Structure formats: structure tokens, C-alpha cells
């Protein structure tokens, strides 16, 4: 790493944070909105940034955009140091959709995009194309004050796509979108990823991200409490898998003694023909092999959800007592 803000030649990460902290106030009232965050997002990755309200997600975005300066640490976008001499150029390749999007009510959709395109140095011809891409070409000449929340959000997304950005920062992007719009939105993200665009999405709708992200960064109380792919985070989890069984009562009655050989497996009967098993991750395959020999009617395996993982990993950083205080 060079000490100046010039772009190092072999910079493979689209976004990089090194020991970044942002504090508000001073002395006893010091609020650590972000504390000691190290993060690297490789080019073309879709990173999900998750955390509770006030965990530091929006602060992290503002730091990356250069809207606020870090109290400690350094950040690079596309190899350019945030706030450094070349950062204006880097900003042209950066798209941002804020959490609370506010547009100009008196402008129409097309005028809005043109205004932002001028400031971003993007070709004006792109505006009409982008309106079409987000499904707003029919409303391009209507004033934004007549737009629904979902339409505004789409227009905001089109704004973020001006200038064909290489890094997109989307803060709670699906707020206010209906299910079909959410599907369209993620389909568009897939197309962007195919073009090699790096995406950072914050959300607290964890189920939405679970199937879609390459990696997750979990923030809790300003600290990065976990980072990795969903599979990697599952590996780290100590939460048991949950197995649901359906079989004749006689088959279920005979099962517990056979499972006694598997330590840590917890058996629970949920009715005459139903049962549940909590099983440590390490014993998943031995358990399934034991069950395979049984004449079962149905079997389902439930991995810990992203939400389970989030609560588990977050508790590892901040004890629940402290949070309540």
C-alpha cells in the first residue's frame, strides 16, 4: 500500500476499508458509530451489509461516499483513496441509492435523471434508456410529485445507474417495492453482476439477501462481527440443524434408542406421526444415514436461517445484557 492517495497498480478490490472508525461527540458521550472496520470487497462481488438499526450501515455508506470523514483509518474506492485527489473521478464510477431517497418534486422523471447525469458527467442520452430499464418510460414526463413510493425508488435506482458505475451502494433498496418489483430489481442486479459491477446492499430483510449475495458483512454496534459467504457463516455457527420427520407411530417409537449413539442429538415428538430432531452440524450425515434405513413418509432438513446466524454472531460480539442497557 502506498502512502499517498494515488491508485496503486495492483488494486483488485473495488472497495477497501482499513481500520475505519467514525466517532461522534467526545469524552464520556463518545458514540462509536463505526469502530475498527476492516473490509475488502473484490470486483464483481455482491456484498450484503446487514445489521440492526443504528448498527452503522448508513455511516459506512457515508464514509465510502466521502460525505463524512473517518475518525480513524482509510478507505479506497476502485484504488482511489476516499477524499483524496483522484476521488472526484472515482465518484463518477460510483452509484448510490440512499435509504431515505428524496427527489425534486417539481421535476419530471426525465428531468431528474438529466440533472443528475449532468452532475455525474454521464451522457444525457442514457437517461431515456435507464427510465425504460427501470420500467418508468411511461411516466418519464410526469412530475415526480405524482410518483408512488415504488416509482420514486425505481427512479432513484435509475439515478444510481447513471454513468455505468463500477461500484453500486444501495442502502435498503427494496423499501417500498412490491414483491414483483423486488423480483425485477434483483433480476437487474444479476444483469449488472454479469457486467462485472460490484454491489454493496444493506438490508434488514435478511431472507431477501440470503439466496442472492456472494458474501455478507454483519455489523453490530459499529463493529464488523462476521464476514463471509452464507455457507461459511453457517459453518461457523453452533446452532443445530432441525430435521422434521413423518412416519408411522411404530417407526417413530423405535427411533430414539437407535439415535442414542449420536451425542448431542435431541429428539422431540410432535404428535403421533410427527417428530423433530435437533442435530449438531457435524452429525448431519451420520444422522441422515441412520434415518435413510427407516421407512419414513417424509423428511425435511432445515438449516439455520440467515436471521438465526445473525443473532448468534451478533451475540458473540455484544452480550444481550449490554444491548438492553
Amino acid at each position: 500500500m502506498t502512502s499517498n492517495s494515488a491508485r496503486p497498480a495492483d488494486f483488485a478490490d473495488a472497495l477497501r476499508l482499513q481500520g475505519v472508525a467514525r466517532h461522534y461527540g467526545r469524552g464520556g458521550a463518545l458514540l462509536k458509530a463505526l469502530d475498527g472496520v476492516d473490509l475488502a470487497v473484490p470486483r464483481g462481488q455482491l456484498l450484503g451489509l446487514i445489521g440492526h438499526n443504528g448498527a452503522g450501515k448508513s455511516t459506512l455508506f457515508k464514509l465510502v461516499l466521502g460525505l463524512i470523514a473517518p475518525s480513524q483509518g482509510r478507505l479506497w474506492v476502485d484504488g482511489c483513496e476516499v477524499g483524496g485527489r483522484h476521488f472526484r473521478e472515482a465518484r463518477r464510477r460510483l452509484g448510490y441509492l440512499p435509504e431515505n431517497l428524496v427527489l425534486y418534486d417539481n421535476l419530471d422523471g426525465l428531468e431528474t435523471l438529466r440533472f443528475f447525469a449532468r452532475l455525474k458527467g454521464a451522457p444525457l442520452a442514457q437517461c431515456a434508456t435507464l427510465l425504460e430499464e427501470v420500467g418508468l418510460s411511461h411516466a418519464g414526463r410526469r412530475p415526480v410529485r405524482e410518483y408512488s413510493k415504488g416509482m420514486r425508488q425505481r427512479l432513484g435506482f435509475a439515478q444510481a445507474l447513471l454513468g455505468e458505475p463500477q461500484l453500486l451502494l444501495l442502502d435498503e433498496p427494496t423499501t417500498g417495492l412490491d414483491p414483483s418489483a423486488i423480483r425485477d430489481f434483483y433480476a437487474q442486479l444479476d444483469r449488472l453482476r454479469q457486467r462485472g459491477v460490484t454491489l454493496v446492499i444493506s438490508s434488514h430483510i435478511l431472507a431477501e439477501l440470503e439466496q442472492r449475495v456472494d458474501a455478507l458483512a454483519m455489523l453490530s454496534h459499529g463493529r464488523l462481527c462476521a464476514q463471509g459467504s452464507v455457507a461459511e457463516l453457517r459453518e461457523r455457527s453452533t446452532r443445530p440443524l432441525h430435521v422434521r420427520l413423518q412416519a408411522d407411530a411404530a417407526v417413530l417409537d423405535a427411533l430414539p434408542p437407535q439415535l442414542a449413539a449420536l451425542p448431542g442429538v435431541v429428539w422431540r415428538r410432535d404428535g403421533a406421526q410427527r417428530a423433530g430432531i435437533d442435530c449438531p452440524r457435524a452429525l448431519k450425515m451420520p444422522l441422515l444415514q441412520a434415518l435413510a434405513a427407516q421407512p419414513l413418509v417424509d423428511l425435511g432438513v432445515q438449516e439455520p436461517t440467515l436471521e438465526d446466524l445473525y443473532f448468534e454472531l451478533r451475540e458473540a460480539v455484544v452480550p444481550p445484557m449490554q444491548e438492553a442497557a
Partner: protein
Amino acid sequence: MKDGLQPRQIAAVAAKEFSDRLRNRWVLAVALVFTVFSLAITYFGSAAQGQIGPRSIEATIASLVSLVIYLIPLIALLLGFDAIVGERERGSLDLLLALPITRLELLLGKYLGLAAALALSTLAGFALVAALLWHRFGMGGLYHYGGFVVSSVLLGLAFLSLALLLSVLARDRTRASGLAIALWFALVLVFDLLLLGLLVASGGELGGLLGGDGFAYLLLLNPADVFRILNVFSLDDMARLYGLASVVPPALGNPWLMGGAMLAWIAAPLALAGWRFKP
């Protein structure tokens, strides 16, 4: 971002501000207000002397100065107080500043766009009286009237600059609007009264303390007074129409000095706003 100012970014913001004011008919409304008031004053200003219509260029300008000194600062402050704090409070400022534009470029763009709207409405608003005076007194009188109109525009620009400073400093829109009204009250209504009161209360000693005419230089601390002096001294026989003229030393009659003072009143608050415009 430590690179230089980019005029293209300033122009993009200025163009939006200007076209917003055209589109919501702000320019038209203010131009109409100026037109109606200036025509009324020109026509009926001498009614007390039993005459309808412009008596002389000097008298007309003297009456218009009294109008402009109240109206333009108020209009400029109301135009500008919301410029930055409004974007901040509504939440659109972050989105703007995430683009490749610096805070100073945004501030200058806002200022220039609003300044263009204010200047256009002022020029348009006083155009009809200009035509009237030209018809009545010919080209000679228009020279002085032109000076009055230009100084009116400068007065507006100075108060607009102050408004943007308030807009940068204020925490929210309510405070900004309160400060704008308070500033108008202080500079337009209270300042002269206070100055005069101090002079009288000190039995003229305060004037002596500041070295003869020194007291009069305190008038430079108020752009509204700079405007008044500019117009009072632009006409040889107008000085006597104003009681104020008798306390103003001749040095202050130099239009270049006063023009410079006005430009300083435009530049200084804007520079301060640029310096104080922080995240």
C-alpha cells in the same frame, strides 16, 4: 476532493435553481411586485405636492430608493435562506454531495442560479418605469436611473449572499427563516436608528472618538446603507433630499469606494459560507 473548481458543475446547479424559479413563477411574481410598486411610486409619489406623474428623475429615484431598501433585502433573504438547509433537512443533500461535485461548487451554483433569478426579476420589474422616464425626460435621466437599478441588483445580491450564509449556518429551516427575518429587521430597520441613537446619546462624542467623520464609516457595515449612499451621491442635487446626507463625509460619495463596499458585501458572506459549509 482537493482539485479545482469545475465550472460545468456550478453551471448545472445554477441552471436548475434558475429554471426552478422561472417555472414556479417566482421571477414573474417578484417582477410584477416591483412593477406595480415602482409605477405607483413614480406616478403618485408627488401627489402630496399636487402633481400626478414623475416630477423629476431625482425625486423619482429618491422615492424608489426608499421602496427598494425595504423590499429587496426581504425578497433576497426569503429567496436564499432555504437553499442549503432545505436540501439538508429534506435529505437530498447527501445524494447531491455523493456526486462528483464539491460543497463549494454546490454553494456557488445555488448562489449564481438564485442571483440570476433575482437580477432578472429586478431588471424586469423596473423596466416599465425606465421606459416611462425615457419618454418623459429623454436619455439623460436614464443614466442615473440605470445606476439606481444596477445598485438595486447589487443590494439584492449582497442580501442573497447573507441568506446563503444563514442557510449554511442554521441547523434547520425554521431557524434559518427566523434568522433571515431577524437580519432584515436588524439591518433595514434597527441599524440606522441605533447608530443615530448612539450618536445623539453620546452627545456627538462617539463621532469624535472615531475621528471626525469616522462615525459615518460605520454605515459601511450595513449593505442597505451602502446602497442608500450610492444612490444619494449619484445625484448632485439629491443629497439634500436626505437628512442623512448631511452627516456623510464626501469620501463616502465616491461611487467606486461604495461599489467596492457592495462587492465586498457580496463576496465576504459567500466566502464565509463556503468555509463553514461542512458535513
